[in-house]
C-alpha cells in the first residue's frame, strides 16, 4: 500500500523488527473431533486495540479464552510479554477479561465487585475500595456504588464489568462481545468511550465481536476469523479496501463479486472476461496467468451512476434502476444490467443540484479500473 510514511511507534505491526507483546504460535484447539481453532499465528503489540471478528462459532471466543487461561491449547504456544503461558492458571495471568454476560457477582454490591480483584492481590481493604471508587468515577457510576447488579440497567452493568476488569490495570484486557447486549445508540456512544479509556490507560485490548461496524470503529487492526482460521489480519482500511479473499470482502461491508477469466495482461491494464459484465479492464496484478479464474470485487460506493454515458471510462454499462433506498446521507441502488446481473451501488447525497436518479430510470453505471480488487480465492 502506498501511503504517507507512518511512525513505527504508532503502528508497530508495520515494523518487522518490533517485538510483539502477545505472540500466538501455531495454536490449535480441538474439542473431541471438532477443531475450534486451527493453527493460528498472531502477533499483537503493546497498546493495540485488536479486534477478532467473525461469525458465531468461528473460534474467536475460544482463542480469547485460551489467552485468558480458561482453555488450554491442544497444540502451539501463547506468550504474553515474553512469558510462556502454558502452565499459568487464569488467576496468575496478567490478563483480565470482560465477559459477554458481564458475570457480575450478584451477591456483591457494585463497589465490592470492582474491589474484588484488588482484594485478591492482598491489597488493604481501604485502599482497594478507594481504587474501586476511582475506577467507578471514570465510568461515571460513583453514585451507584452501593447497588447490587440486579438493580442496574444493562448499560450500567456493562460499565461495572468494564471497571472491574480494568481496576487491576492488567497488561492485557480481553473483551468478549463487550457491547453486544446494548442497544444501537448506547453501543455507538460506548464505542468511543472504550477507545478513550483504552488510550488513557494504555492497556492492550483484544475485543471479540461479530459486529463488523464495531470492529471497524474500534480496532487498530482486525483479525477476520472463519472456521478456526484467521483469514486476514490488517488495519480496518486494509481489510475493507484490499480484502484477501471473497469471504473477507463479503463479510466486511457490502461488495459486488464478479467471476471472470484473465484474458490479456498488458503492462498497464489487464482485461478480464466476465459473464456478468462482459470485458472489464482492471489494474494488472502479479502472479496471474492467462485463463486463470478470478473474482473481481467492487464496493458499492465505487460505482458512479450517470444519466449520460461517461467519457473516458473503459468500464461502463447501461442498466435500469430496479430498487432504490434513500438512507439520508446516501442512497442505495440496485441496477439490473442486460446480462441479468444485479449491481449494488451507492451514491453520496452530498450534491443536491440535480434531480436524483430514481426507480425505473435508465442509467449508465461505471467504475474505474483501480476500483476492482482481483481475488484468487
Amino acid at each position, binding site marked *: 500500500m502506498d501511503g504517507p510514511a507512518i511512525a513505527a511507534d504508532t503502528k508497530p505491526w508495520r515494523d518487522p523488527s518490533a517485538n510483539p507483546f502477545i505472540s500466538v504460535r501455531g495454536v490449535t484447539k480441538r474439542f473431541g473431533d471438532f477443531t475450534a481453532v486451527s493453527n493460528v499465528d498472531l502477533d499483537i503489540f503493546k497498546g493495540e486495540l485488536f479486534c477478532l471478528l467473525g461469525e458465531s462459532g468461528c473460534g474467536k471466543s475460544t482463542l480469547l479464552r485460551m489467552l*485468558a487461561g*480458561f482453555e488450554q491449547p491442544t497444540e502451539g504456544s501463547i506468550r504474553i510479554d515474553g512469558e510462556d503461558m502454558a502452565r499459568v492458571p487464569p*488467576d496468575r495471568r496478567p490478563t*483480565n477479561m470482560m465477559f459477554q454476560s458481564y*458475570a457480575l*457477582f450478584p*451477591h456483591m454490591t457494585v463497589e465490592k465487585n470492582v474491589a474484588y480483584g484488588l482484594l485478591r492481590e492482598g491489597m488493604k481493604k481501604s485502599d482497594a475500595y478507594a481504587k474501586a471508587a476511582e475506577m467507578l468515577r471514570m465510568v461515571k457510576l460513583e453514585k451507584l456504588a452501593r447497588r447490587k447488579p440486579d438493580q442496574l440497567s444493562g448499560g450500567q452493568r456493562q460499565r461495572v464489568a468494564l471497571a472491574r*476488569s480494568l481496576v487491576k490495570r492488567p497488561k492485557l484486557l480481553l473483551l468478549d462481545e463487550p457491547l453486544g447486549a446494548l442497544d444501537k445508540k448506547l453501543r455507538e456512544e460506548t464505542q468511543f468511550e472504550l477507545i478513550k479509556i483504552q488510550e488513557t490507560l494504555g492497556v492492550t485490548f483484544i475485543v471479540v465481536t461479530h459486529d463488523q461496524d464495531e470492529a471497524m470503529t474500534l480496532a487498530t487492526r482486525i483479525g477476520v476469523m472463519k472456521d478456526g482460521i484467521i483469514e486476514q489480519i490488517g488495519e480496518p482500511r486494509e481489510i475493507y479496501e484490499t480484502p484477501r479473499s471473497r469471504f473477507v470482502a463479503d463479510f466486511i461491508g457490502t461488495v459486488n463479486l464478479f467471476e471472470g477469466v484473465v484474458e490479456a495482461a498488458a503492462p498497464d491494464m489487464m482485461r478480464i472476461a466476465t459473464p456478468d459484465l462482459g470485458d472489464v479492464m482492471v489494474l494488472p496484478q502479479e502472479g496471474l496467468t492467462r485463463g486463470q479464474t478470478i473474482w473481481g470485487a467492487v464496493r458499492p460506493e465505487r460505482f458512479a451512476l450517470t444519466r449520460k454515458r461517461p467519457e473516458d471510462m473503459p468500464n461502463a454499462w447501461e442498466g435500469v434502476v430496479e430498487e432504490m433506498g434513500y438512507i439520508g446521507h446516501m442512497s442505495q441502488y440496485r441496477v439490473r444490467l442486460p446480462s441479468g446481473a444485479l449491481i449494488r451501488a451507492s451514491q453520496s447525497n452530498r450534491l443536491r443540484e440535480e434531480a436524483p436518479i430514481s426507480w425505473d430510470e435508465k442509467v449508465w453505471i461505471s467504475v474505474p479500473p483501480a476500483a476492482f480488487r482481483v481475488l484468487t480465492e
Partner: protein
Amino acid sequence: MSWRRTLVIAIPMLWLGIFFLAPFFVLGRISLAEAIIARPPFTPLFDRAPDGTLEIIASLENYRFLFQDALYRNAYLSSIRIALVSTIFALLIGYPIAYYIARAPEPKRSILLLMVILPFWTSFLLRVYAWMGFLRTNGVINNTLMSLGVIDAPLRMMHTDLAVYIGIVYTYLPFMILPLYANLTKLDGALLEAASDLGASPVVTFFTVTLPLSLPGIVAGSMLVFIPAIGEYVIPALLGGPDTLMIGRVLWDEFFSSRDWPVASAVAIVMLFLVVAPIMWLQSVQNRREMD
C-alpha cells in the same frame, strides 16, 4: 372472578385448617388437661361444679412439669444436639455430592440424580434394618475388618449414638442433596471464571462466590434434615442404645407406656416451638439479606 380466586385459596386453607390447625388446637387443649384413668384418658375441658356452675379445667401444670423434670430437658437438648450434628454431617457429605452432580455432563447427571432418589423406592424401615446388618457385632463391617486383620475384637457400633448419627445422615442425605443440587445447577460458570480471572484461587473462589451464592440451598437442605431429625423416633429406637435420649422416644413412652396424654401433648407442643423458632430466625435472616 373474585369467587374463583376465593375457591383457589379456599382449598389450601381448608386443608391447613382441617389437618394442621384443628389437630394443633386439639393437642393444645389436651396439654392443658390432667391425666385420669378413663376413656379418653384426660379430664374434660368443661365440667359441672358441685354447685352446678360451668367451670373450665385447664392448667399449665404439665408444662411446669416438663421444665422441672431433667429427663425432658435432657431429651430436648440431646435431640437438638443429635439433629444438629447430623445436619452438619449431611451438609458436609451432601455438598460435594450435589456440586459434583450439578457440574456433571448431561447423561451422567440424570443417572447420578436417579441414584440419589432411588433408595426412596424401598421401604425406609428396610433400609434402617439393613444398617443393623452392617453395624451389629457380627455384622458386615466388623466381619470384614476382622478378616482383614485390622481389628482383633468386634467394634461396638450398634445401640450407640454413632449408629443413630449414621442412620439419620444416611436417611436424610437426599433431602440435603436435592435442594443443594437445584441451587448449584443455577450457578453461572462464568462467575467462577470471573473470580479466577480476577486472581482468586479455586479455594478462594469457592468461599467468596460459590458458597455465598448457594446459601439458600444450604438453608433449605439443612431445614429439611434438621426438622425431621429432631423428632425422629424410628432410627433411635432401632439403632440407638438405651441411653440415646431423643424426644421422639419420650413422646412414645408418654403416650403408649404411661398413657399420660396431657404430658405427651405438652411435649409435642414444646417441640413444635423448638422447631419453629430456628426456622423463623433463619427466615428473618434471609429476608434481611435480601433487603440489603
